[in-house]
């Protein structure tokens, strides 16, 4: 529903690039991606995206941790109407996904019809191509797709 197909390791030579650095593990081929989160060594709270100071206790002592790939859909929307200049993006689905330890992560939802989205459905991380750069390289981000039945939940 959003973006194109998932790049495979064979196309990796064509140089898929992450849309921004520091959000998820890369390169493609090491599926599924994991999210790069911060865990506060002082109070134990975890954040995504990563932070320099803890939002809860202001400690600068944060360590990078990996989160995912499993989660559950906490809530979602389908964006139909966008600001002028952004129309080419839509429509697309966005969710908040609850991961282990209660960490809530926002991301694009893929691999499901809009009408099949349901709060509490099990999801897993995947790569999603959301465009190409001027050299034709796929630009990828993380996204959530329905987890196959019987998969281990968070």
């Amino acid at each position: 529903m959003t973006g194109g197909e998932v790049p495979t390791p064979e196309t990796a030579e064509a140089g898929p690039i992450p849309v921004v650095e520091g959000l998820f593990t890369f390169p493609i081929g090491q599926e599924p991606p994991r999210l790069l989160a911060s865990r506060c060594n002082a109070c134990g709270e975890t954040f995504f995206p990563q932070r320099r100071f803890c939002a809860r206790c202001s400690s600068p002592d944060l360590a990078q941790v990996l989160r995912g790939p499993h989660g559950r859909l906490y809530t979602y929307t389908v964006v139909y109407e966008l600001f002028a200049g952004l129309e080419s993006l839509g429509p697309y689905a966005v969710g908040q996904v609850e991961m282990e330890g209660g960490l809530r992560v926002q991301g694009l939802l893929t691999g499901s019809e809009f009408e099949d989205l349901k709060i509490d459905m099990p999801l897993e991380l995947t790569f999603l191509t959301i465009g190409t750069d001027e050299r034709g390289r796929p630009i990828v981000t993380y996204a959530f797709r329905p987890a196959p039945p019987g998969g281990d939940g968070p």
Partner: protein
Amino acid sequence: MREVAVVGVGMVRFDQYPQRGITDLAVEAVLAALADAGLAWPDVQATWCGAAGQGMTAGTRVLAELGLTGAPITTVDNASASGSTAFREAYLSVACGLYDVALAVGVGKMTGGSGAAPPVDRREILQMQAMGFLPPAGVFAMRTRRRMHEYGATIIPYARVSVKNHRHGALNPFAQFQKEVTLEEVLQSRLVCDPLTVLHCCPISDGAAAAVVASLPRARRLGARPLVRVAASAFRSEVYSSDGQLGPAITELTARQAYEEAGAGPEDMHLVQVHDAFTVEEIDYYERLGFCPRGDGERLVEEGATTIGGRIPFNTDGGLLARGHPIGPTGLAQVWETVLQLRGQAGRRQVEGATAGLCQMIGAGGVCVIHILKR
């Protein structure tokens, strides 16, 4: 701290004014507030101007039109809460004894391209999409979807907030929309972010609003009409909460502070104005401001408790949904409405016997500002 009264209010009807600039709008509101107070611009000892995204030093630029008196002017940007923050600063300056007369004005022009310009660079657009870009309606669509799930609600109670606030707006000659809408119209209007249609969302507006505050002795010398006092001014920035939702938690904390300062509780309020940029917010705030337990908000609007004539009318001027939301002045429009109501000058939308009103605003970023006014 000294007691402070609101001695004058004025506003320009919120609407879309493609031909009018912010100076024109702000000056009209300031002159209306000064006339209401029986004061002139040179009487104002200090001004705070709430203006979100209106360019550098919007306050000094627009007020220069009225004459260069030398009185300090400060521009305040706290997104939707800019006008409320300006009001608080003007109030504090008089309360602490620095001045006897201070002005708060808010101005906002969202038409004509002076709002936030969307990025044009393709890479920049894709970067926004990295975590799933959400326009404001998308954030509140997700919150609506979650509330519906938690409380077993349909979209109907949220749509009823829009119906109610448009009904209030139809009674307010200063509202952008002065026409009632039906439940069917709300449900069948254009889908913006599922499940929210456009009538669940506040419009794009231009406008200005102003309020003059004065020390009690000065206020008494100005005239005999019912004196409206500032009973509480509470202000907080966001406190970390793992649910990451701006608005509900911060409103609860700020309200607690405001009620304590006023020596009053929700049961003492006769009308309430809140940041209903999206319908679900008003229902969240029923609960967070203490007017019903968690999970009962939907029932409160369904029962008609928050309509004019009900137990506790909310957004008596139409709220952001119908009165409009030019961002910077919106908090001062709430003060305008509350002052008129407490003076008994609200015409067809008058809440009978109102002596205490609460104004709540949320500003993206985020902040919450709550004022309690009493007659």
